[in-house]
């Protein structure tokens, strides 16, 4: 399989990585095996589902570790700006759109300062002026926004 994936200067997201693997494998089979049989297609689909599932599990595990680390290590007694500068928080932002449902799930469990991460990833700002600063209402605004956007968690 080496050399089948186009080199890229940007690291692909996890889901993109799955897609690239699948496309590369299909391309390999087309080139080397003169086409893909139905049986191969079924195996590919099954493989895609397994890979997606494994990648999602890893994503959830990484997110949970980073979120827990942030809650334990964030500067106590400081304001949001110092809290969001913590490396674990920044790494969660760096995980991109894939973590949006996980952040929304966290907000549903317990209102915390995940608003900046959501804003940084999505660019959205759904909190109405009357709810600004009230963490429970801010969380509710983001959860409603997430459902409207079609996120599931």
């Amino acid at each position, binding site marked *: 399989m080496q050399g089948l994936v186009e080199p890229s200067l940007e690291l692909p997201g996890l889901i993109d990585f799955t897609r690239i693997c699948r496309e590369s494998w299909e391309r390999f089979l087309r080139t080397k095996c003169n086409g893909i049989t139905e049986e191969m297609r079924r195996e590919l689909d099954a493989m895609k589902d397994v890979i997606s599932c494994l990648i999602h599990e890893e994503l959830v595990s990484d997110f949970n570790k980073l979120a827990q680390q942030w809650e334990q290590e964030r500067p*106590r007694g400081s304001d*949001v700006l110092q809290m969001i500068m913590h490396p674990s928080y920044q790494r969660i932002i760096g995980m991109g759109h894939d973590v949006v449902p996980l952040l929304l799930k966290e907000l549903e469990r317990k209102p915390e300062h995940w608003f900046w991460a959501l804003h940084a990833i999505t660019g959205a700002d759904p909190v109405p002026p009357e709810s600004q600063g009230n963490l429970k209402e*801010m969380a509710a*605004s983001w959860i409603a926004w997430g459902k409207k956007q079609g996120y599931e968690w």
Partner: protein
Amino acid sequence: MNGNSNAWIDNAFPSLSHGRYTITSAPSVDYNCIGWALGDSAAWWSHLPGYRWPNVERNPTVETLVAMFAQMGYQICDDACLENGFEKVALYEKAGLWTHASRQLTNGRWTSKLGPEEDIEHATPDDLSGVLYGAVHCIMRKRQP
């Protein structure tokens, strides 16, 4: 909740150790130091999007925090001494960015909400100077109604 000591506070604020403060509330994420200094214990005030902030620029500079308190009726004054008829606040900065605000009580002592943690009562604004909050940038006062 009232208490006289907490390990993390002792470590974060060396000037406060040896019982020079009193814990006056349990930790809470419902409000922060700025809200508390302004008498609002129901909201988290911050220049970041989605947080409570009046109609001043949303940026982290200490000048913006001064402008925000000015909009709320406070004026810069000379010192942190108790003055009859005035409520005073101390604004803190580190590397030009605002970090904290504390409010003077009617007995002359000061009250601070420590981010998402406890409220404490302490003797002077300088008690909180150090690595975490930097230093006091200015004292502001507002005439009490």
